[in-house]
């Protein structure tokens, strides 16, 4: 018996351990993975050689990537650390990509074909300053090709072959700020030009081979300089003076520095407000933006300026590229309606446009923000150009010959928030017109398919057939399915763009660049914050579309006014947008809807006043009824304080605003600031479903889970240990975990971990919390679990009391009653650092849970909650084993097969979102960072549906065999009977 039981247990264990496992040929059936790079900051083309043409880009998501110039695919990609932003990139020797990062302190060279790091040099930076990378353009065969790096008051010359520092030169001058490095062609002299804080122009002449300072020259400019400066040619600088009213040309290569200045008003012949210089890098030319006009000017040999052209309302100008000796070209982009006009000019004949193209661009991509150009020689020896354009929504386009060759939706690398929307219900009855149309479509489709089978289809037809197949394939349909696997994931990106992704294959269904979240006169620097479900129709699900609420604000400060926008989730059309008069500190989606089924949202502003949305008389009626039971809390990390709030009444504003409510503070918890600092707050998901409150123990005892929507997990660390790992000793570090009731402010449980520190990641679900932190004593990461049980219900186990009616089962559950709780905890080691923690969610909450852990390697590990069960003991009894309690181990197991991302990495992982499917056993998981990954998992296997690899053939064979057997036996028995009768 014991053997059998243990075998059974083993079988169960095996079953559950393999729950998330996947066969290699199943990759891509339920999951998809998309790779992105983020908004391009800088791009360098590499097209010299025959063979693979590529462009190397550095992005704001700290990615350096090499892209295929023909298709936009990623050849290789590296995501640098978050504290290591890329400043500049270049290509050295024609085979290395050189990146300067961390404010000029790290220089790395990557092998161009495969992205392998070749060398890395650390540059000592004493004080943060502007950094500059200068890779000599004549990347030829010369042996000692030196890369010049300026950072933190020091100029380093670094060999591009192995990264050795050839020489270094310190510029210890107070307030020296480098503006340019120039090396006249073929010369062995380097000019380093900079300004000091007191408007002195300093020119240093340095020997390129040895770093020896040949000449030092400094002249003060009497009117002062603004610090904005451009290098126009190898010996000329153009700067703005302190008053920002005139331009100064500085000639520095001659033996002494000469100035020449010219008022901008003379240049443009009109009054202006703002002026800024734009880098152009064309020899002898520069660009200045005066108000909204772009002024192109040439510097004559005498140092005088001459305006060559004025262009109104351009978007951006590219850096120049060298075509032939002394001939340089640059590109400019202008906008008109939904088209962008690209023009390319050459410096020796500036007035004429070498190339003028007009390209139609999706209006949802916004304006062009950056442009990089590259040239190629056509067969007729003329120059052709291709342009890489970075759009407002962070997408990347390659334009060649007036067409968009490829585009990348790289805004998806910076998702801010996400939500889910159901797809439309499949309509059974359709109108006659639709039937006719459908019939025609159907006929067309079949004709195409027929053509395909008869091998008559052209390439175009094949593509259409493919598209149709894709559209009709079960998982990619645009309608709701029975299992709830097909949904729309709606994401909000940093650029203020909202995109809907289909869960079937991750394709973009619609995208909209919200006008309210674009930079405009009313809204200076908009920030996209959150996305919520605004309207989920149930009564009229057939003919009403659901909609979404997008919340943003204008400006960084906490009192910046908010922006609301409502978007249809089927079409992406913006239905409504409101510019708020108040700020946004917190958005609380309330569990109530008005008569139009619009979800009520309470927006708390900086003064703790609540504002109700939608602003309808109906919503206020609903709200007033429920007002007394609305509580919320706010966290003040600076003061180490958590406050609880409730609504009081109408606002005491001068203007009567009936949708504004004032609040009162109910409670506050102040942590001692000298010993505790808030490091993490976590709460339960609002939409989580709990199946049962009771939990039956091994000894058939019932424990009641303490289930409350108001439970808040807060963790504090000692201020000394609030930094990174390695900055504190175990003695001065401690971590305190609290469970707080957010309505009363009562601390339900408190536990201290000595010698532990952050970063803390936590997830709260049902009656438990799992949190991850670092144990300094063991120098390993730990995960702790706290389970909380309601003791006051435990007395109901007495049957006599139940019969006599002395139970409290019917008494209302309220946060105000003092609960008697019992807490169970346990702690385990966990190997990896963690980036995000989430928990699976299912429709009814019956299925057992898995904790999803985003590891430092950008993978997502599914860990059974049973491993994080405080009832685990070293030697579980027979009864416990049968219940599935796993013997206690000191570390949590990492089973490679339970990585739900299998062999993919979600680079730059930031968050994991779980969405319940309609099928109880299944959870949809969407994780995002720089990459996106979606899959569906079944924490206890798909017990309610047949798996995809279910063999229908075998079932059929069995049935046939059974039927055949019945017939055979029947015949046999009949024959036998006949024989017996004859006998």
């Amino acid at each position, binding site marked *: 018996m014991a053997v059998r039981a243990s075998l059974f247990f083993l079988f169960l264990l095996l079953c559950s351990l*393999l729950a998330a496992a*996947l066969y*290699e*040929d199943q*990759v891509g059936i339920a999951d998809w993975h998309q790779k992105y790079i983020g908004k391009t900051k800088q791009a360098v083309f590499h097209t010299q050689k025959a063979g693979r043409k590529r462009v190397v880009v550095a992005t704001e998501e700290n990615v350096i990537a090499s892209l295929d110039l023909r298709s936009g695919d990623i050849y*290789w990609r*590296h995501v640098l*650390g978050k*504290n*290591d932003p890329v400043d500049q990139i270049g290509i050295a020797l024609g085979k290395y990509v050189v990146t300067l990062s961390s404010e000029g*302190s790290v220089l790395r060279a990557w*092998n161009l074909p495969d*992205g*392998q*790091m*070749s060398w*890395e040099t*650390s540059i*000592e930076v004493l004080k943060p300053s502007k950094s500059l990378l200068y890779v000599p353009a004549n990347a030829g065969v010369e042996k000692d090709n030196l890369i010049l790096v300026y950072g933190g008051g020091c100029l380093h010359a670094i060999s591009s072959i192995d990264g050795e520092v050839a020489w270094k030169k310190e510029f210890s001058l107070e307030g020296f700020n480098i503006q340019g490095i120039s090396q006249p062609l073929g010369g062995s002299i380097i000019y380093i030009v900079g300004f000091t804080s007191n408007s002195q122009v300093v020119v240093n002449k340095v020997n390129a081979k040895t770093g020896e300072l040949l000449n030092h020259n400094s002249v003060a400019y009497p009117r002062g300089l603004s610090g904005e400066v451009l290098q126009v040619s190898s010996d000329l600088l153009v700067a703005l003076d302190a008053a920002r009213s005139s331009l100064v040309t500085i000639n520095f290569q001659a033996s002494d520095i000469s100035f020449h200045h010219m008022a901008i008003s003379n240049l443009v012949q009109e009054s202006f407000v703002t002026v800024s210089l734009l880098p152009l890098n064309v020899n002898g030319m520069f660009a200045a933006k005066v108000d909204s006009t772009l002024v192109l000017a040439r510097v004559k040999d005498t140092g005088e300026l001459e305006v060559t052209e004025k262009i109104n309302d351009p978007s951006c100008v590219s850096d120049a590229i060298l075509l032939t000796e002394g001939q340089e070209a640059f590109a400019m982009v202008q906008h008109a309606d939904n088209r962008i006009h690209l023009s390319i000019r050459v410096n020796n004949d500036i007035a004429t446009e070498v190339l003028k193209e007009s390209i139609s661009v999706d209006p949802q991509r916004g304006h062009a923000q950056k442009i990089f150009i590259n040239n190629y020689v056509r067969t007729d020896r003329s120059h052709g150009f291709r342009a890489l354009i970075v759009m407002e929504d962070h997408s990347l386009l390659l334009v060649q010959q007036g067409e968009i060759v490829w585009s990348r939706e790289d805004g998806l690398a910076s998702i801010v928030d996400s939500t889910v929307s159901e797809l439309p219900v499949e309509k059974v009855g359709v109108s006659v017109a639709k039937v006719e149309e459908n019939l025609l479509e159907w006929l067309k489709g079949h004709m195409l398919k027929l053509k395909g089978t008869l091998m008559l289809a052209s390439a175009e037809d094949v593509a259409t057939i493919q598209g149709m197949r894709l559209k009709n394939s079960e998982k990619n349909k645009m309608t709701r399915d029975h299992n709830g696997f097909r949904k729309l994931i709606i994401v909000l990106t940093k650029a203020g763009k909202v995109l809907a992704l289909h869960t079937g294959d991750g394709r973009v269904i619609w995208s909209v660049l919200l006008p309210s979240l674009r930079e405009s006169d009313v809204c200076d620097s908009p920030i996209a914050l959150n996305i919520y479900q605004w309207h989920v129709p149930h009564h009229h699900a057939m003919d009403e579309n659901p909609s979404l609420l997008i919340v943003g604000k204008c400006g960084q400060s906490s009192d910046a006014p908010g922006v609301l926008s409502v978007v249809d989730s089927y079409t992406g059309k913006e239905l409504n947008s409101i510019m708020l008069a108040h700020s946004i500190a917190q958005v609380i989606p309330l569990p109530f809807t008005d008569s139009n089924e619009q979800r009520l949202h309470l927006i708390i502003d900086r003064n703790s006043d609540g504002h109700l949305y939608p602003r309808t008389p109906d919503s206020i009626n609903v709200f007033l009824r429920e007002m007394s039971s609305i509580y919320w809390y706010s966290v003040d990390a600076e003061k180490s304080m958590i406050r609880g709030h409730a609504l009081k009444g109408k606002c005491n504003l001068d203007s009567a605003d009936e949708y504004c409510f004032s609040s009162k503070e109910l409670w506050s918890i102040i942590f001692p600031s000298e010993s505790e600092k808030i490091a993490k707050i976590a709460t339960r998901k609002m939409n989580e479903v709990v199946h049962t409150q009771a939990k039956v123990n091994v000894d058939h005892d019932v424990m009641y889970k303490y289930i409350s929507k108001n439970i808040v997990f807060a963790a504090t660390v000692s201020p000394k240990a609030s930094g990174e790992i*390695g900055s504190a000793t175990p003695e001065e570090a401690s971590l305190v975990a609290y469970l707080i009731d957010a309505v009363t402010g009562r601390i339900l449980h408190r536990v201290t971990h000595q*010698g532990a520190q952050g*970063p803390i990641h936590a997830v709260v679900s049902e009656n438990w919390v799992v949190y991850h932190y670092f*144990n300094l*004593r*063991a*120098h*390993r990461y*730990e995960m702790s679990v706290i389970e909380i049980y309601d003791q006051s219900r435990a007395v109901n186990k007495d049957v006599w009391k139940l019969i006599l009616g002395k139970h409290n089962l019917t008494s209302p559950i309220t946060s105000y009653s003092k609960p008697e709780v*019992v*807490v*169970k905890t*346990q*702690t*385990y*080691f966990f*190997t*990896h*650092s963690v980036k995000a923690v989430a928990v699976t969610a299912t429709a009814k909450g019956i299925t057992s849970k898995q904790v999803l852990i985003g*590891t*430092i*390697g950008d993978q997502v590990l599914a860990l059974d909650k049973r491993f994080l069960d*405080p009832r685990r003991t070293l030697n579980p009894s027979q009864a416990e084993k049968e219940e599935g309690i796993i013997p*206690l181990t*000191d570390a949590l197991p990492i089973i*490679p097969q339970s*990585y739900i991302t*299998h*062999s993919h*990495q979600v680079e730059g992982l930031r968050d994991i979102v779980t969405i319940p499917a309609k099928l109880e056993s299944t959870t949809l998981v969407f994780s995002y960072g720089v990459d996106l990954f979606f899959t569906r998992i079944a924490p206890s296997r798909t017990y309610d549906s047949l798996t995809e690899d279910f*063999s229908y053939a*075998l079932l059929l*064979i*069995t049935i046939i*065999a*059974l039927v055949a*057997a019945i017939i055979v036996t*029947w015949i046999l*028995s*009949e024959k036998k*009977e006949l024989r017996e009768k004859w006998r």
Partner: protein
Amino acid sequence: MTTTTTTMSSFFPSVLLLLSCLFFSSIAASPLGSGDGYTITGRVKIDGTGTRGFGLPAKLSNAKVILNGGQRVSFIRADGYFSFYNVPAGTHLIEVSAIGYFFSPVRVDISARNPGKVQAALTENRRVLHELVLEPLKEEQYYEIREPFSVMSLVKSPMGLMLGFMLIMLFVMPKMMENMDPEEIRRAQEEMRSQGVPSIANLLQGRSS
């Protein structure tokens, strides 16, 4: 009421580490000129590659070395070496992220009193490293291995079992019946008839007769 387990962290091999620092100091940490920072240099080694190898396996070109849970990220050079510059004295954690391999995090102590003295130990099994050479503890296989088609798997499946049982009933039962005493069979049949339990055989007989 709190129940905490005693499995954790109470035992810490401090003695072991103290002993180890007496006789080993081979891991390089060179102080930079500026004073407070040290350089940690190590090597990631995977079987089949090394200093004399032909570079890292293709999938390792995306490997990262992470200091203190993401504070800094470094990359591996073609020969497997990696470095962290300007690391302050103290106890640090180095992790290697390489798809397909499981690496143990490494605890690295940089002594402030004896500049340049560095100790390293794997945190998973507390093995002390004399050189900062990081090797994967095991390879990670992310997929289930599909077993090749076999008759046994068919037989073992519920439907296979059902079929098997049927076949047994079909061929073995009549044999058993034959071996039985005809008297006994008749008695049993009579008994069954008197009880009125319909059997499949009876039903079939009834229909055919």
